[in-house]
């Protein structure tokens, strides 16, 4: 092979070639003149990738075991309390004074700490102790590779089994003893619900002998939820904290002498009628999940009562693959401009929400039942706006049928492009400039704010958190509701930082003599959802490419 030739395509190009290519906006890695990969080559690469996936899976399982182990330790820990051991709840004694963990600064008894060799540059040169929780966290941080990637890699939790002292027979016995209420507890957690994965939670009756323990228990619970993120090595984030609250808390406790257990239904607020109904047959869904509702028509008040029971298998919207769904209900067609919309409460962090909420539509005559239908749209609740997750339409005639419970397949969001006030935004992370290049292309259907029926819009942009505190503004487009800016702004940042930063855009109406009117806002970042999350991740994943997308603006102002 001749390496001396000027344009050898098998070697790294020289500086000049690189700089020329950089001007083409294609990135120097994109060699356009090269032939595309042949089929056999693609197959070979795919085979390697498949092999790598297997290795990754083994690794994910291993990390999952580490995480499970740590979670187990955390769960069985007592939680920080003054003058008691963080882990075992032991109080300070003369010969065994409590030690302070060098990392979390909580006190722990000598059994629950390990000595660490004194730190060379430490100010606290006396003794260094680390509580076993912090030591374990640190070890996991190391073993999982999170120390390098600055966050836990993806992992697969090992299969859950009921471990501990209470085996199945005993469980069954307690269930029987608890009497009729136990049935309710069982039917609540039907297959497929997130609750059924975990055994029903037991609560310790606060009997005389046990009063202290039960206090501990509730403390423990609280602590797990709030403190788990801040505990241990700074920056460690456990993605599965939400699941902790669903785990049985009492199962691991050891002393069981003379203490009585009772079953508490997992959801006390659940109406009893719900539990008696049999599951309707499953229907195929289009990948957007299913929704179970119940319809009832009341002649006396001429109202339709819609009970939203639950949804299953919704699409994930945020980084963790979970959503915060709520339903918006509307009777269609509308009568005039009067819109009759109702919404349910939001169920947070789940793909299988249990709504169990009844909403009433009044003023529906019997003749309306034949001509009208009910539209249910599921949205993902988000501070920065709502993204549609799916919708279903059902004829109101259905409420006259005898078992009025229905299971609906949700169909995808109608129309991929957003409507209403929106902004066309192009993002590109430029590795050459080491900056996020944000282009505010245009706006559309902005709300009019001035008395002339127009607005004078401009956009403010900033990145948060940004070490340089850069803020940008577009020019003002006078008397325009569909402005075209096409203005480019640079935010210096690193691609690794990008996943922790949010790009906030606010659209304003310029006014003289009075404060500017707010027209809408938009936040893109790893914590945003749906389309915005996808756009942001695309921008991080594929640097040096321009990613253009419309985003709808929200009218909430958050700074």
């Amino acid at each position, binding site marked *: *092979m001749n*390496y*001396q030739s000027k344009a*050898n*395509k*098998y*070697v*790294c*190009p*020289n*500086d000049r070639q*690189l700089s020329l290519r950089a001007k083409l906006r294609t990135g120097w*890695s*994109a*060699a356009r003149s*090269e*032939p595309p*990969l042949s089929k056999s*080559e693609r197959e*070979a*690469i795919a085979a*390697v990738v498949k*092999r*790598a996936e297997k*290795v990754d899976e*083994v*690794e994910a399982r*291993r990390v999952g075991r580490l995480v499970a182990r740590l979670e187990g330790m955390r769960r069985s820990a007592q939680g920080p309390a003054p003058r008691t051991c963080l882990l075992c709840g032991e109080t300070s004694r*003369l*010969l065994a*004074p409590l030690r*302070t963990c*060098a*990392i*979390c*600064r909580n006190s722990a008894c000598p059994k629950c700490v390990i000595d660490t060799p004194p*730190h060379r540059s*430490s*100010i*606290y040169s006396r003794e260094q102790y680390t509580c076993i929780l912090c030591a374990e966290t*640190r070890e996991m*941080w*190391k*073993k999982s*590779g999170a*120390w*390098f*990637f600055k966050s836990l890699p993806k992992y697969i939790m090992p299969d859950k089994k009921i471990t501990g002292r209470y085996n199945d027979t005993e469980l069954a016995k307690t269930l029987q003893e608890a009497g009729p209420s136990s049935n309710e507890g069982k039917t609540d957690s039907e297959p497929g619900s997130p609750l059924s994965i975990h055994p029903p939670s037991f609560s310790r009756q606060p009997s005389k002998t046990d009063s202290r323990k039960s206090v501990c228990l509730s403390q423990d619970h609280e602590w797990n939820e709030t403190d788990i993120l801040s505990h241990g*090595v*700074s*920056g460690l984030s456990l993605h599965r904290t939400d699941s902790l609250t669903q785990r049985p808390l009492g199962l691991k406790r050891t002393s069981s002498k003379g203490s009585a257990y009772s079953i508490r239904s997992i959801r006390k607020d659940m109406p009893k009628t719900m539990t008696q109904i049999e599951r309707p047959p499953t229907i195929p869904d289009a990948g957007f999940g299913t929704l179970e509702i119940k319809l009832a028509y009341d002649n006396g008040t001429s109202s339709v009562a819609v009970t939203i029971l639950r949804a299953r298998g919704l699409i994930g919207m945020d980084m963790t693959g979970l959503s915060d769904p709520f339903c918006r209900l509307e009777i269609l067609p509308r009568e005039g401009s009067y819109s009759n919309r109702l919404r349910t409460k939001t169920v947070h962090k789940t793909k299988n929400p249990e709504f169990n909420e009844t909403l009433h539509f009044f003023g529906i005559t019997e003749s309306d039942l034949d001509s009208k239908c009910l539209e249910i749209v599921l949205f993902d609740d988000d501070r920065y706006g709502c993204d549609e997750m799916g919708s279903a339409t059902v004829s109101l005639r259905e409420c006259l049928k005898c078992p009025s419970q229905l299971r609906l397949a949700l169909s995808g969001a109608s129309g991929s492009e957003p409507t209403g006030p929106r902004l066309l935004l192009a993002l590109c992370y430029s*590795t050459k400039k080491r900056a996020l290049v944000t282009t505010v292309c245009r706006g559309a259907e902005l709300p009019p704010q001035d008395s002339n029926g127009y607005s004078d819009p401009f956009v403010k942009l900033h990145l948060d958190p940004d070490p340089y505190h850069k803020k940008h503004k577009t020019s003002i487009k006078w008397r325009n509701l569909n402005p075209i800016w096409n203005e480019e702004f640079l935010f210096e940042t*690193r691609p*690794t930082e990008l996943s922790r930063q949010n790009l906030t855009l606010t659209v304003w109406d310029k006014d003289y003599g009075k404060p500017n009117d707010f027209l809408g806002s938009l936040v893109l970042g790893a914590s945003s959802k749906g389309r915005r999350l996808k756009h942001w991740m695309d921008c991080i994943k594929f640097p040096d490419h321009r990613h253009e997308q419309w985003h709808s603006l929200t009218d909430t102002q958050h700074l």
Partner: protein
Amino acid sequence: MAKTYDYLFKLLLIGDSGVGKTSILFRFSEDAFNISFISTIGIDFKIRTIDLDGKKVKLQIWDTAGQERFRTITTAYYRGSMGIMLVYDVTNEKSFENIKNWIRNIEENASADVEKMILGNKCDLDAKRQVSKERGEQLAVEYQIKFVETSAKDSLNVEFAFYTLARDIKAKMEKKQEASNPPGGRTGAHQLRANEQQRKPTSWLSRCSVL
């Protein structure tokens, strides 16, 4: 269950086409050598578990194609690797000069704190040598990267190179963990001080009674 291990380190081999990246990896993973030249298609990886100070370290070593047409695929693997070996051919001046470009390539695509190492391969071919060992060392000093001349054919320094890189990564890991303490500890220190002052009388009394 498969063999367990304590750490998983992902390494990457880069360098111009034909410098012997695949041969180095083949020597390290299978302890064998193949005289014929088969260009790597895109990417490939091999796994070997080594023992470092009593810890089992699984090395997943990615071998990349040096050819530019695979560049889009190979650069995708920079980000996930904890250590990168830059390989050049001592009998090929051009491949040595290109190390600078490869380093810039790393700076653009890999994590900032990736461990690097330069390998001058084919050092058994002294007759055809174009790049002296001194020049290699000088380059390494310039970039403050470790350097070693290897020969996949004669199995010279190959093991050493991988062990060194793995050890460096491990050392960096330990250091990072140590370093992550003080910020957390310092903020907590103020609280602790306040607590200690309150608690002092009781602890002093109790200690006295023991004595």
